[in-house]
């Protein structure tokens, strides 16, 4: 009976119902969209790191520690047979790492020089450009941010100084043959990439390697020697830690969005219910009990939430799907502000986010329907009939 009356009330109050449902639906959509955007940014950072740096995992020289450049001069050797066969089968890419200094426009800048196999297709970097230019002594690939900081452009030459295996400093001219656009600052800032054979020649480290990144879904090899296996979980732990550290911020933002939504829904519902004081008085006069009045208005709120969910699925669902599929282009280039961000943000709408948001929106709508209707139902019917203002 109550459901029928509640449904009839909502259908009858066309514009009022539409506005209430719209406010709830917009709140619903905004919470999911903004949270999805935030999750997407974090997921994207992780995915970019895997694609451009980690691939399926890595084998490190036992002395290699990317956080300690002083150890680079000792962190190199020939590959153990198990890893070497992986490289020969083109299922892994070897990288030789050393410290170096560059002198762009006469200013010194310490860098990490990485020699990489130009023909690799394990990680998403345009290393093939390193074989196209054979006229230059040392072809160098750098990232957009590095180019910006050093003011180097395509074709610019600059001095590179390094310490070879004998402990002797050497120097030669390097030429920027390509500036790559990447969202992974770890392969960009403070890094120069050269062909691995050239790096071995410069460093006098024939056939030597610092680490190897292997293809995705490749199984761990057995014959590692003293080399150390690093899986994806290990290699992305710094990003995971950053995401974990960012979680409270994300939760606060979710809570703020929820509060804003709750205020919007509360305003719409309270206004709608308090305006209906006379109607509530009339229902009481013709014999509806107080508890049924409260149940009726709470049920109206519940149906309102169901309709809002439906509206969120269509048409807002199309917007959510479209943004998840094609992303949102960033309006400005954040690299100019010193941030490395994706040019398109792709939101990620997890099932957990959708379920939790749905439950919370339902709880809010039902609560903000229940509280004012309970208050108004406690009025004397004579006061409600007169349309007395509820304080």
């Amino acid at each position: 009976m109550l459901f029928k009356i509640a449904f009839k009330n909502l259908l009858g109050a066309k514009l009022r119902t539409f506005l209430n449902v719209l406010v709830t639906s917009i709140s619903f959509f905004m919470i999911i969209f903004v949270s999805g955007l935030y999750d997407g940014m974090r997921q994207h950072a992780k995915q970019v790191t895997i694609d451009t740096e980690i691939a399926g995992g890595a084998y490190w020289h036992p002395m290699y520690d990317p956080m300690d450049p002083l150890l680079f001069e000792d962190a190199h050797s020939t590959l153990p047979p198990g890893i070497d066969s992986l490289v020969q089968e083109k299922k892994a890419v070897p990288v030789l790492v050393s410290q170096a200094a560059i002198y762009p426009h006469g200013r010194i800048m310490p860098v990490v020089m990485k020699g990489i196999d130009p023909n690799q297709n394990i990680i998403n970097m345009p290393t093939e450009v390193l074989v196209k230019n054979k006229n230059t002594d040392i072809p160098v690939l750098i990232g957009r941010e590095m180019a910006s900081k050093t003011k180097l452009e395509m074709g610019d030459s600059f001095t590179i100084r390094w310490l070879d295996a004998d402990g002797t400093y050497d120097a030669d001219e390097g030429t920027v043959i390509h500036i790559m656009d990447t969202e992974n600052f770890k392969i960009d800032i403070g890094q120069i990439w050269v062909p691995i054979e050239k790096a071995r020649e410069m460093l006098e480290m024939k056939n030597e390697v610092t680490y190897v990144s292997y293809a995705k879904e490749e199984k761990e090899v057995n014959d590692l020697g003293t080399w150390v296996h690093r899986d994806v979980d290990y290699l992305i732990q710094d990003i995971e830690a950053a995401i974990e550290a960012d979680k409270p911020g994300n939760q606060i933002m979710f809570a703020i969005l929820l509060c804003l939504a709750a205020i919007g829904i509360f305003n719409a519902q309270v206004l709608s219910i308090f305006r209906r004081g006379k109607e509530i008085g009339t229902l009481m006069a013709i014999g509806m009990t107080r508890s049924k009045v409260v149940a009726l208005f709470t049920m109206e709120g519940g149906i309102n939430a169901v309709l809002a969910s439906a509206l969120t699925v269509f048409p807002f669902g199309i917007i959510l799907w479209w943004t998840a599929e094609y992303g949102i282009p960033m309006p400005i280039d954040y690299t100019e502000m010193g941030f490395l961000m994706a040019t398109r943000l792709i939101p990620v709408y997890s099932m957990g986010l959708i379920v939790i948001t749905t439950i919370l929106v339902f709880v809010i709508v039902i609560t903000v329907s229940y509280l004012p209707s309970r208050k108004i139902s406690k009025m004397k019917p004579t006061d409600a009939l007169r349309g007395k203002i509820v304080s």
Partner: protein
Amino acid sequence: MENNTVISIQNLVKRFPVGGDFFTALKNVDLDLHRGEFTGLVGPSGSGKTTLLNIIGGLDSVSEGTVRVLDQSLDNTSHNERAKLRRKYMGFIFQSYNLLPVYTVFENVELPLILNKIDSDERIKKVNQAIEWVGLTSKRNSKPSMLSGGECQRTAIARALVHQPVLVMADEPTANLDAENSHNIMKILTKLNKELDTSFVFATHDEKIMGYLKRIIRLEDGKIIKDEKIKRKDS
């Protein structure tokens, strides 16, 4: 209480808090109303007629005294029991109609039957009958905003009578209507009073109504000052 007594009131006092003090709206009222009576509570504004009507309808509580409606004491009944009494045995007609704006005439009239859990087929039959009583068959699908004042009040009458209550209370039912509509409404109510044997209690100070009443109870400053039964030609 006699068998045909619908309302029995003894030593009724009603006080309202005003500021830090109390205003006594009804003072030691004693009254009996019988089945089928067409009674008016008449008096100037502030005389206590609407307060008395609200107390009889169980919409307001008493400060002192006893009120029995349909052989049930209202002094110690819960909100739910009073709601049930109103739902089953009473009908209300208000000065400003109090129709639900989002409902059609049919749906407004249907509401008391839904609350009384009458099944759908019987509901349709009864609603159509009630709409016919008040002459609104052609407007059954119209919403209140599309009706004149007189039509709205006729809808309210149909709603008050659709479940054929024992007692109908009407608070200034013609106050918002012109003379012609007022007479039409009173003619409808007189006819239904006769046909359904429903008791009517009006709170009014409208002289146009007086000519239809069979009993006039005059109130002044919360007291009954005169209670007269009037013989009408048609009664």
